[in-house]
């Protein structure tokens, strides 16, 4: 089965989270998924550019849609923020033909491109469950993951129209994937809550509390590890967990990795990193 997508790596996989880009590519190879790069695609804006100029973010993302449409492919991304923001802008364009016409005029004038809206945005999680199939994934598992895992969705992909066939409020695709890989999923409330990434620089005290609550709840539910569907959230949950713990007095030490990493590890890629992860799980914590 040939599975092919236009690939958008997300906002920070080229910088803060290179492990996501690396493991996404190795996982795709192992699964036989062809990732067609979109070398001209820009950052999705992460909802930040929209705060300065809504039409600007919309047009930049319309350019990305036009490029994917030119390839005749749907877009695949490992980043929940990118999936959510692209989907939000795509739906805005699809639901307003006048808006799409105006944006196309700008694209035509500046880039010589136009879009039709006949493109779909998929997060790797939803593509895996809805299109590729967990049975195919199970066949490829070489290193069963024997951890107790808390799956983190965040709010961006848990929007109406952005979460594939999963439930907006009570999702379980991540838990299904974790089980398929051999892990034990835990049930926790903070899995769809925001950890406040867009406010990290300006509202750090609040974000630290949000981050600490998510981390401590995952620990309290017995998780060895948090697997995040979002690059940005993963970065904050990992990098800031020491500071969040000190600010709040909560227990926050727990390894946090991205979904692509655990997928890649389970399929036999990057065995040294899996060994390192096992060590981290063994030594990190209270």
């Amino acid at each position, binding site marked *: 089965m040939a599975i092919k997508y236009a690939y958008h790596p997300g906002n920070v996989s080229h910088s803060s989270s290179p492990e996501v880009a690396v493991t996404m590519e190795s996982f795709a190879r192992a699964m036989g998924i062809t990732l067609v790069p979109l070398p001209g695609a820009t950052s999705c804006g*992460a909802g930040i550019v929209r705060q300065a100029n809504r039409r600007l973010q919309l047009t930049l993302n319309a350019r990305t849609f036009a490029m994917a449409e030119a390839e005749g492919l749907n877009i695949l991304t490992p980043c929940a923020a990118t999936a959510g923001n692209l989907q939000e802008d795509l739906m805005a364009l699809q639901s307003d033909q006048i808006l799409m016409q105006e944006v196309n005029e700008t694209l035509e*004038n500046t880039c010589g491109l136009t879009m039709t809206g006949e493109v779909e945005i998929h997060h790797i999680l939803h593509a895996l469950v809805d299109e590729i199939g967990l049975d195919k994934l199970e066949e490829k598992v070489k290193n069963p993951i024997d951890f107790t895992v808390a799956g983190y969705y965040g709010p961006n992909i848990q929007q109406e129209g952005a979460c594939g066939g999963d439930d907006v409020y009570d999702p379980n695709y991540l838990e299904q994937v974790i089980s398929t890989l051999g892990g034990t999923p835990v049930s926790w409330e903070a899995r769809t809550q925001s950890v406040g990434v867009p406010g990290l620089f300006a509202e750090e005290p609040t974000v630290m509390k949000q981050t600490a609550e998510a981390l401590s709840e995952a620990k309290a539910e017995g998780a060895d590890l948090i697997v995040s569907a979002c690059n940005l959230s993963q970065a904050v949950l990992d990098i800031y967990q020491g500071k969040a713990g000190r600010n709040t007095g909560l227990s926050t030490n727990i390894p946090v990795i991205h979904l692509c990493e655990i997928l890649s590890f389970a399929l036999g890629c990057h065995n040294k990193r899996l060994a390192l992860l096992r060590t981290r799980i063994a030594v990190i914590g209270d």
Partner: protein
Amino acid sequence: MTDSSLLILFGSESGNSEYLAVEAEKQAKSLGLSCSVKGMSEIIIGDLTDVKNVLVYCSTWGEGDMPDNAVDLWDAANGDSPPSLKGCNFAICALGDTSYEFFCQSGKDWDDWFEKQGATRILDRVDCDVEYEDPAAEFTSKALSIFSSMTGGAPIESQVNEDITPEPALEETIEVTGDDLGELLSAGDRSLAILYGSQSGNSEALAAKFSKQASDYGLVGTVHDMDGFDLASLSGMSRVLIVCSTWGEGEQPDNAEALWVAANADGAPSLSQTHFSVCALGDTSYELFCESGKEWDKRFEELGATRLVDRVDCDVDYESIAAAWAVDSLAAMAAVDGTGVYHEDMVESIKEYVAGDDEGADGEDGFTVPDFSAESIQAEISIFRYDPETATTGSDTWLCAMPGHLSLLEALRTVKNTHDGSLSFRDGASDDSTTAICVNGRLVLPGLVRLDAVAPTRDGTLRLRVDPLPGFEVIRDLVVDHWSMERRRESTQPWMVAATRGGASTMQGDIGLMEPNVATALHSITDFGSSALLQASSDAVPHANGYLGPAVLASVWARRNDPRSSASSVSGLDEILAGSNGIKAETDLASIRRQNGSGLVVSEALLDAKTHVLERDAFNGRHGKHVWWYTWTLKSSGKVNDTVLYRQVLGPIGLLGNLTSGVTARMMTGFSRTGGDMITDMLAFIAPPAGIGKMPRQFNSSVDNHHEVVAIFNELDGRF
């Protein structure tokens, strides 16, 4: 009556009790209860011996007197041999007027009487004054929930613990089933007796015809000649149709004479289990038209039988009238289930089923009314509990089977009324905005969401985790204190300070006008159903001290854009929006956007508010710089450059803070751990010209055709 049926009895003078009884019947049917409504004059006291569940609405007349239609029944009830009502469950709603001395006396009398006869009171009597609607409605909801649980659907396990351990499905579950047409038309006894009294053969022919038609209604029709018919056998029949002609001067036809005499004798049986209807044949040229049929109709009623369809009196051209009566009567008889319970609400569906359309009942306007009832579903309901006296928290889990169309609020009432009266939640009308709770991470008004739609059913079981609204202090169980939100709202001085405006001359005089699109936009921002629900949708509210929250800010933003607001008011509202507890304190609009219908509109409005505030501040401060530099780096390479963001937004002091708090170290080791180049990343943080002037592209390569990105920026926003 059977154990699962409910008799709703009313004693009414002005019609209020009857109205309440009819409303209760509708509500009961929505809960899957089979029930019938009767006036107190429509039953005899002996009928109550067969009733297991009775709900009574009774008004008081004059100086504590029974209403007219209840007088006879009351007299009989206090006769020499009142019936024993052991095993009967009852509840009384008394209507009265406190301006009279004997307030609600009739209801009180019935309450005492039922108890005295051994019946079990399942809910304390409620005494309603002239403003009876609300207390009566509350009483009805509670009573029906209890009856519903007693006849099925009751949660059967209460498990109180600190750590929830879901139990496997239990062997026994009590089920509240909705009406099922297929089951109704096929299950149990489906016999229909058709008695004819005939002189010329017309009644006999009609009886035979109706008997054949009966099979279309899932009935097994048997035609009986009245001559030689055993009257005593009638008491065991739940469905009887009578077709009877009249002879001479209002006389019974020959073959009916003996049965008629027996029916009027002292030993005539009670027909309290029997449902009947009469088709009378006659000739209007005679003085006593259809007299025989009228007599049978009256006598069956006297013997306690239940008339499902009014008698029809046919003249010599009887065919079409009799055929129409047969359609109604056979459908009504078919709606009597195998246990003898009449399901009036199913009659229309049965008619449509027989006519070849079982989609639903046709509405008056010609459209089809969909059937909203749903199958019973298995539900595991875990409810957060908090006891303020002992300051302990935990959760209770109930396993139960309930109709899927039950609202979540009705399900909570059922649990409270049947298993744990201490369970606390805000109750009210279905759209009461203060009733908001959280179910499986979804914020809902529980009266507006069906049980089978509130969360996905997995592995055949609906698992619900019911929590109080996040972001509010919990008073007890699911009850939260909205005061913190109201205090924040109060701090924004939530009233209109209007500018003096010129009105427009209209036919109604000079009045202020507003452009329709402006009015629509303002309404869309503030037309959220529940402030508490919207406030709880922000994941920042529980953590950001003082943050006004989306519900308060949406109103502020709407007033700020209201053309009626004065300039000084707009200025003050701008200060609120731009303040430290204003829109900047919201860390992620995505959490608001995802919750319910109004979340999308409000998050869009709050995004506009944030843009307005940032532009007003010329993108200064950390919020402004974050947005500015993020956008700027996107223009410079097409990618975000997070090292630039750290330097520009946090500045030297912020970076130093990260350095000393371990964030920087963790970041760099994080990069190393995952294969990045530590030296490059370290350089990114310290390389000049950090924080000075325009940034070089540094470590980002540009996207292909980067000039297109620049062109889009130049076309749409020259500020960057």
